[in-house]
């Protein structure tokens, strides 16, 4: 499998990144090298091996469904690049 500049553009779109032409070229080359290196995993038979997502035997950590205090709104908005009326402000999403 080899990655083309077109693939890189597609992945950048998925990742919400805007790449310059030189970045596109560089990433195409570097990702190909890294993925070629990763192909060595194909040499292992993992047909009957369970995947490990996590080393601890923990699943579905639950807590009681009880109200807890929320952060005050001014703290939540402290780092907001833009805000209005106690809300995060972004460019219009709908026309």
């Amino acid at each position: 499998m080899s990655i083309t500049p077109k693939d890189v553009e597609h992945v950048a779109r998925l990742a919400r990144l805007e790449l310059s032409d030189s970045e596109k070229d560089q990433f195409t080359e570097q990702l190909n090298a890294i993925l070629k290196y990763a192909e060595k995993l194909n040499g292992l038979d993992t047909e009957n091996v369970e995947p490990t997502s996590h080393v601890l035997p923990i699943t579905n950590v639950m807590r009681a469904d009880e109200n807890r205090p929320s952060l005050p709104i001014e703290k939540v908005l402290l780092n907001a690049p833009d805000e209005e009326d106690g809300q995060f402000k972004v460019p219009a999403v709908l026309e």
Partner: protein
Amino acid sequence: MALFDLRLQDVHNKLNNKELSVSELVSASYARIAETEPAIKAFITLNEEQARLQASELDKQLQEGGERGLLFGLPAGVKDNIVTEGLLTTCASQFLSNYDPIYDATVVRKLKAAQSVTIGKLNMDEFAMGGSNENSSFYPTRNPWNTEFVPGGSSGGSAASVAAGQVYFSLGSDTGGSIRQPAAYCGIVGLKPTYGLVSRFGLVAFASSLDQIGPLTKNVEDSAYVLQAIAGYDAGDSTSANVEIPDYTSALTGDVKGLRIGVPKEYLGAGIDPRVKEAVLQALSVYESLGATWEEVSLPHTEYAIATYYLLASSEASSNLARFDGVRYGVRAENPENLIDLYKKSRSEGFGAEVKRRIMLGTYALSSGYYDAYYLKAQKVRTLIKQDFDQVFSQYDLIIGPTAPTPAFRIGEQVGDPLTMYLNDICTIPVSLAGVPAISVPCGMADGLPIGLQIIGKAFDESTVLRAAHAFEQHTEHHKQRPQL
């Protein structure tokens, strides 16, 4: 600086006897920073005003007597990916260059409870991605032993600040070796605890199934004290392990008689600097002289670890870093055309090359049509790598080898060659994938640069790891060497 060479117990005795005050400790820290920081660049943000205030409060408490915290009065540095309320936390990224956290990470709360004094926030590779600190978007940290060389990474500032005597101890984070490798390069002690032992709440996530916070110190005993202060279950971290926390310092008996040590042949084979190999073999002979035994063992899937790690860690990173969208925090790009453009521009302007590269790799590995071939495959190989460790640990108490295949390399030497840079982590990454604890302790020098010995233990058996590291330290002088700055 000699002040920070004292053992924690000796510092506390001096405080008790009024030979020393917390204000003097904190002043010594900032004086040393003023003296050495132009050459080292270990810090991103200093906390001087707050720290001096806190010091005078602690001195008042000292006068009044009464119970004191485990790390009372000790000047501490905190890696800049661990959030600190009211103290900038940048992850060494332009994206977060103005980020003012509204809460403390659990480990920071625990440090406050233990009454250490936070001196400042430490430089790192951006978002902890890198092994040299060259990926800091502000400036690279330099190795105190030779400022032409890297301090390692990603906790390079954490290691360099302790080695340079700027702080008494520091906290770092380790995803694939980011505490142990810089500790080795800077000639200090760095401990990566078992995954889940220390809460990740408030650690800016890189790869959630691997990230772990741990201490960097000048000796093993101090490492045990700091671990004691920060370990423990936390409901704020859903992967926190609910295990009993032993008394780590009481494990430091100096006795390693009868310990069975496995030495993986893969960690001493091709690609390992002969000087590193020699230092490790000498360390093993110290253990033999103390009554432990060692044998060569095999971790047969070691050669697959780096590929596995970069697929898994980058995939997790691509997901974790999706939160940096320029809406709730961080630096927003100016004049976006629409919302999607705002995301794209903010991220593209805010992230450096290595971060973008890993987001790209991870996004690709998780994308439709490639998930099975890359991400799932890597998760399966991770199982095999973990089984390697399980098998050896069924017959041995510890695994010992080098922390890194070489001493520190020159700044600029490996930039632009991500694969070579990744190979520096060959001895630390498998340990991270298995989730087990490991410590790096100084075990020699090569051309004026330190070499690290890695001692790896069973899950949640930090006590044996610390005991073995401490016994080695008691019978060698490597940890007493200091860089001339």
